[in-house]
């Protein structure tokens, strides 16, 4: 943003307040998107951003909410600047609130740069396609829906499911093997409870990740509209650290559902025509402005990998929040209630889960040459087993053929041996693949149509034991 009127301008002409919005009269040359400071009667300062501007009026969204503001006694100061966040490597190991104020009692940050929190789109021409395998140590992810560096891969979960444990386990275990690179964790909490926040912080502390992390914490009791800002602060910081300071950054954002609620609140206050289920029609584009701030850039060492977490209202994957997210992210990891009820941890349902970047992240020199064929076969086996399970529920087991029984048994084993693992169990990719082979070895080779004869020759347990 170029700054035309460097001078800040003050107005005391608030003509209306509605939800998180202030309507300021007679503003003339206020710029769209301009950063605003709002001084309440008690002298406290809030901040906001211009959503609409005309000769007569400006509409300002107030991140801390408008509670306690009055028409008569509010001073609105337009700064002539976009909203910026001061960054430097000093932020590492520090904790901020949802609007970027230091809350860990430490010294203020000495900034190296002040960056527009809205960022700029990465030129698609400049992107480097993600190809580096991140080993999370979780088989359902590494084996079936591989994460790669520079990917945006959300967890789709539901209330009361162990998505936090899974995210913490990933944060603890994620590594790119055979490298000694600078790794960082950025954690943005949006409207989560104190207990949840404490769980994450303790877990980071325990694993020693806290000193290599930057935390942005907006809790459930904190202002809701601030949640519009928090992920942008986190990603501005991530972009700086990845592309200026060469860090590999993993950004965990939770819970994006709360973000979308804040977006809906603003849209309602502006009396916009609502889209599906009351969420604004531009929610896709707005979410993209967060999720797309991920990736790698040609010629830069660092990278941003994003793992947003969202709880699906009513476990409904067609709800606009997971739906629009799935349309933007590069896959999704589904945390499933049925598996959770059956005591399987992590309760990841691999069938509706997907990693779109898997194909480039696996194979020889990355994971192992048999990875793709093996996971294709495991998918086939598990999908077949699951649909037979449904059939059994209708017609009973007696009617099944021997082949059917084989698939049913293998699907059970897949859940118990492959998907299921300990919260502190970190499996290497070789271990993961070998468990997969073990399960498949109960089939005659002719059933393994997804796997080439060469690969069977080389990796099938029966052949391997013969060799050794």
């Amino acid at each position: 943003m170029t700054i035309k009127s460097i001078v800040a301008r003050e107005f005391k002409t608030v003509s209306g307040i509605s939800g998180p919005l202030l309507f300021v009269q007679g503003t003339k040359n206020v710029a769209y998107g301009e950063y605003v400071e709002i001084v309440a009667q008690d002298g406290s300062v809030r901040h906001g951003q211009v959503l609409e501007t005309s000769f007569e009026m400006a509409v300002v969204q107030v991140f801390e909410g408008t509670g306690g503001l009055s028409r008569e006694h509010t001073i609105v100061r337009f700064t002539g600047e976009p909203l910026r966040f001061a960054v430097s490597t000093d932020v590492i190991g520090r904790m901020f609130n949802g609007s970027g104020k230091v809350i860990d009692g430490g010294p203020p940050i000495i900034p190296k740069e002040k960056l527009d929190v809205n960022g700029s789109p990465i030129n698609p021409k400049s992107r480097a396609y993600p190809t580096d395998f991140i080993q999370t140590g979780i088989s359902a992810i590494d084996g079936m829906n591989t994460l790669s560096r520079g990917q945006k891969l959300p967890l789709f979960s539901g209330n009361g499911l162990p998505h936090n444990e899974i995210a913490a386990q990933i944060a603890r275990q994620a590594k790119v093997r055979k490298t000694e690179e600078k790794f960082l964790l950025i954690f943005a909490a949006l409207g989560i409870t104190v207990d949840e926040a404490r769980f994450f912080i303790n877990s980071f502390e325990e694993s020693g990740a806290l000193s290599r992390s930057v935390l942005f914490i907006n809790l459930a009791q904190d202002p809701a509209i601030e949640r519009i800002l928090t992920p942008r602060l986190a990603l501005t910081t991530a972009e700086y650290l990845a592309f200026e300071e060469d860090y590999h950054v993993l950004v965990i954002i939770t819970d994006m559902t709360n973000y979308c609620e804040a977006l809906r609140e603003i849209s309602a206050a502006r009396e916009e025509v609502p889209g599906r289920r009351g969420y604004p029609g531009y929610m896709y584009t707005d979410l993209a402005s967060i999720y797309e701030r991920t990736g790698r850039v040609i010629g830069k060492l660092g990278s941003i990998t994003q793992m947003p977490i969202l709880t699906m209202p009513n476990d409904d994957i067609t709800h606009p929040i997971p739906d629009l997210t799935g349309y933007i992210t590069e896959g999704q990891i589904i945390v499933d209630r049925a598996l959770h009820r059956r005591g399987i941890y992590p309760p990841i349902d691999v069938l509706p889960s997907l990693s779109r970047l898997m194909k480039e992240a696996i194979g020889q020199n990355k994971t192992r040459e048999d990875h793709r064929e093996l996971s294709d076969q495991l998918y086939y086996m598990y999908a077949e087993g699951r649909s037979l399970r449904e059939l059994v529920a209708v017609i009973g087991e007696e009617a099944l053929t021997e082949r059917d029984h084989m698939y049913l048994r293998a699907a059970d084993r897949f859940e118990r041996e492959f998907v299921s693992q300990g919260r502190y169990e970190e499996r290497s990719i070789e271990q993961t693949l070998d468990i997969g082979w073990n399960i498949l070895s109960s089939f005659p080779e002719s059933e393994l149509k997804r796997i080439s004869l060469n690969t069977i020759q080389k990796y099938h347990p029966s052949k391997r034991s013969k060799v050794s």
Partner: protein
Amino acid sequence: MLKQKLKFGVIKKVVGPVVFAENMENITMYEMVKVGLDKIIGEVIRIEGNSAVIQVYEDTTGVSPGEPVEPTGLLLSVELGPGLLNQIFDGIQRPLTVLEKDSGFFIRRGIYPNALPRNKKWHFIPIKKVGDKVIAGDILGYVKESPLLERHAIMVHPQIKNGQISYIVEEGDYTIDEMIAKIDCGNNNVVEVNMITRWPIRRPRPIKRRVSTYLPLITGQRIIDALFPIAKGGTAAIPGGFGTGKTVMQHQLAQWADANVIVYIGCGERGNEMAEVLERFPELKDPRSGLPLINRTILIANVSNMPIAAREASIYTGMTIAEYYRDMGYDVALMADSTSRWAEALREISGRLEEMPGEEGYPAYLSSRIAEFYERAGRCEVLGSDERYGSISVIGAVSPPGADFSEPVTQSTLRVVKVFWALDTSLAQRRHFPAINWLTSYSLYKNDLDLWFAKYFPNWSVLTKEFMQVLQEEEELIEIVRLVGPDALSEVQKLILEYARKIREDYLMQHAYSPADSYCDLKKNYYMMCLLSYFYNESKKLVDSGIQVSRINSLPSVQELGRMKFVPNEEFEAFYFSLLERLKNDLSSLAGGVKG
């Protein structure tokens, strides 16, 4: 100078990508304007008295009321000429490679480099000479634009109805700005021609007439070529929920379709998907010529976090470029991924204008805009005195919310397109790719194109009908199994189920990332169908004579059908004859077993 200044308008209001301006006396609809002190590009989309509404193609942060709006007198246009191929542009044809050089890896605002390189020299070979009479669309000469497009035609502009060449350069190297010919149009009107032209993106380029489409666009995707084919000049929609394979299919078509030119529009989707094309296409070889595919490809990338007004424009930018190559007499295939994001851009802008919303908030003109877009596809006789034919095939991805096809964008699209490839979330979750649902998809070109296929593969349509029928029967049999269990099935019915399973798994499923399977030529496609059909029809005789399906299934040659897709195109004919022989032997040995 002063006069021009008087014509400047003034910004009255800014709401996101929409700017309201006053004092816009002589403005025309769809005129390009420069907005604000940064002179960012916008387009007039509504005029009311002296006021105009402008959609702005870049982020409007920092723009304020009171700033000027400068008219340009031009409609929003694209540059056409040699140098388009092999490039990547944003939605308003800014070359992203040049932007990267100018502003680094983040796209900065207010930079407008030329779309086509001005300093590059092209080797022009004239085919007309002084004194020749020409009409609109006539070809003056050619340049070699890329190894895959040897003859980029330099044509007489569509607006020149009649003229005579009064000057034309010799064969040689010229930049696109240099004059290469003069056309005397009479009445002292001599037009100087160079190799670059401009065309407004919202106005279809004129043609002589539409002709019917009877040639298939061969895609190398088995299910498409055999069951739901698209014609050259045809229209197709791929709707599907997230992760069902729309983009992979579009990439497959961009790679393998037998078109001369590919225009690929990434419209409001992911940045990495464009990066993928940029990394992969220079390495992938065209199966026909063996040359890198990027040489026939033009990419338009206006990804999801780039400005939405430019997203709205992107599909027209792409379409105009496609028409330009069609006018040379080429077959062009255009992919738009995803038209839903374009429609959402339309909706957002309409919302900012406070227009009366129609269904799900989309403007009432949504379906007419969609129809107008697809209307620009087709096969036609193009302008020019020589009889030339060109075509544009359009394949649009649709992203219905919640994968529910009853929503307005899917429905409006289905009313105009002739091919429907319905992607199915449940197939995708089973990793059955391409996840095209064989029961609900259709192609209205199928019957016409069968005539073409019959010329090369006499029983092509017999086979494809047999496949469709078996898949339909499978559905009914599965229903029976669900109700009363598999025991109720006869051996013949079990054989049909087995045949259907083989069709689904060994034929319809096609792995985009497997080098041998990604592209299946028509011959391999045909032989695969023949083998499966042979298996079924011969097995049926055995079953009729009392042999169990499970015994047939365990024959080595029958199991080999499961791996046939991984036999490369070049080797397939030999493989076909050898497997056919083995099938014959194995099956007859079973038959012998019964007799003996």
